[in-house]
């Protein structure tokens, strides 16, 4: 079952460049109806018809979860990426019709928390924007620490500091400002939960520090979507479907399976949720595991692969699909 099978036809109703790298897109239902409500931290998967290629990229919903008239996302342009963000930045216009998935939340608030401590890096701010709106509506207690390169690239810094002057703390790297993490974590009241969204280095830094300071694992939440990386083309055979085809240089294995007309399961398309886990029947070569779902021993066994982000180098790989 792929979450993407439950889809919504939308129209792009607004495009706002925020700064040199980040642009905001607004979607409304094509039939004029209301969109589903969602919970802060949820993402939607956006379908992009980029020439011959169909891209399906996840983006965090940043609008007010209670506002059913529109969804908004903010997209950082990744010039070195495979093209999803570039496509949105360059090809999408107001009035375009697009298809998005129902909201899926893999980064939900723990509603038992007495306090929500949020740590954001760069474009990792987006899920927190929705969570803050949800918490503000229900009198939830939160505190945001937001690190970005500089004022010009600090998306939503002004909005946040104006709306929540006592709860938002901003750090500009270029000005040498840095979060005093140990001190911050040390002083939190009992019942605090930590949420991290940002680059891998930041997530690891906060998780490691929290662990060292004795924070319970269940109180530390993070979201990191990996983008699939390009690589050498390879041949895949699907045993059940009895198909054999090439996975292109800039195509993920999952995208190639879909392009071959096979409905494979997925949710996050970023190596995090486990939904697309697939059994490997034969592999004449090396699997390049890039997910953070499989355990190390599963990766070493060569019997499993996460086709959304992982690749293969060798003669042929045969999957139980």
């Amino acid at each position: 079952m792929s979450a993407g099978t439950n889809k919504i036809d939308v129209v792009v109703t607004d495009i706002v460049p925020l700064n040199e790298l980040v642009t905001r897109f607004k979607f409304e239902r094509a039939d004029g109806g209301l969109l589903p409500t969602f919970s802060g931290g949820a993402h939607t998967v956006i379908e992009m018809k980029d020439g011959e290629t169909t891209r399906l990229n996840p983006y965090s919903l940043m609008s007010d979860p209670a506002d059913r008239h529109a969804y908004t996302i903010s997209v950082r342009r990744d010039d070195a990426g495979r093209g999803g963000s570039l496509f949105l930045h360059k090809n999408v216009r107001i009035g375009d019709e697009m298809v998005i998935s129902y909201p899926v939340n893999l980064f939900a608030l723990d509603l038992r928390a007495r306090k929500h401590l949020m740590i954001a890096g760069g474009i990792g701010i987006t899920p927190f924007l929705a969570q803050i709106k949800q918490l503000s509506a229900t009198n939830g207690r939160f505190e945001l620490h937001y690190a970005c390169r500089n004022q010009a690239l600090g998306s939503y810094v002004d909005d946040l500091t104006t709306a929540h002057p006592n709860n938002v703390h901003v750090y500009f790297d270029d000005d040498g400002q840095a979060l005093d993490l140990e001190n911050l974590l040390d002083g939190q009241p009992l019942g605090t939960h930590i949420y991290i969204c940002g680059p891998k280095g930041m997530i690891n830094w906060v998780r490691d520090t929290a662990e060292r300071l004795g924070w319970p694992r269940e109180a530390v939440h993070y979201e990191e979507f990996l983008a699939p990386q390009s690589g050498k083309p390879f041949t895949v055979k699907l045993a059940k479907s009895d198909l054999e085809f090439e996975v292109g240089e800039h195509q993920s294995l999952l995208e190639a399976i879909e392009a071959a007309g096979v409905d494979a399961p997925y949710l996050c398309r970023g190596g995090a949720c486990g939904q697309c886990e697939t059994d490997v029947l034969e592999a004449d070569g090396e699997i390049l595991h890039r997910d953070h779902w499989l355990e190390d021993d599963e990766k070493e066994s060569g019997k499993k692969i996460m086709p959304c982000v992982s690749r293969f180098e060798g003669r042929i790989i045969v999957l139980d699909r």
Partner: protein
Amino acid sequence: MTIQFNDETFRDDYTFTNSERAIKRFPFPFHEDSYMYSVNMEQHQGGPEGSIYEKRFDVDEHYISEMKDRALVLDEDPLRCQSLPHMTLAGWDLLELIMVSKSEDYPDLFELHRDGNNWHWINKPLGIEQKFVFMDESTLPYGPMEYITRQTQGDFALLDQRDENLWMDAGMVTTQADWSLDFDIGMNFFEWHAPVPKAHEMGIFKRALKFLLNIQQGMPARRLNWTMTVNPLLDTSPENYHKWGAQKTTLTPENVGQKQYLRVELQTFFRLPRSNGMVFPIRCYLISLEDLVTIPKWGRRLHRVIRDVPEELATYKGFIDNRPLIVDYLSKFDDGAPTSDGVWPD
């Protein structure tokens, strides 16, 4: 569609009956002549017209009487309905899901008028009319989960999702097959399923949990479960075992057809949008053996299933002592003819 609601009881004099229509639409759970656990889940996106699968929340002829029975259970034991503090938002999710579904699926019975957060709910069968402010608990006579589940057939387990697990953190449970919300509250998926035999070894719960964690908004799922109950009792709870347990010893060859019921649960699973929790409605359907064998295929098949079900399962489901009586009775309706695949009558 008009429903003639029964005036009947699920206790004391047991006046519960199934009409011919109710018998025909009974969710017979066995698709073949034997039974073993499986992760038998499918999408809950409607079903054949008139079947119990057609609507998101089935309303049938027992509705009003079941709600009266629920009120009696709650009067005696308020702990059948509990909600931990962080589950209030999920309670609102559930209230919205049920009110929207019922008003869309049964417009002649239920109406919901919404003006922003000012909501107006009309439940015609129960004669309830309520104006309230959505997300403002002070405007309802009960919390949101209790309010709406006092008006909806079936038990409700409201589950929080965190740490790759589901947690039974709220519920309304008055029609259960011998489990207790008060005992299970706060437990995770593996903890509350610990008493089930065999299934853990088979890896059923690990796979089932993985499936459930991935149920998304707009993609509800369902499965059936079953057991056997003597007398048409909704409240077969551990709390009241001293009242109903002894009734199992009253079966005789003469009364088994009338007193022995097949109890089937339609279990559905919905992702809740605002809380990212899940609701797990467990709807109980009862049918006497006497009524069930009026569908020849079901009589033949139930005989074979009950006769061959492994001993651990018959013990866990609580009918091991009565199995010989039940099998004797059902054997009279099994001529050995082959049965067709699937659950539907021929």
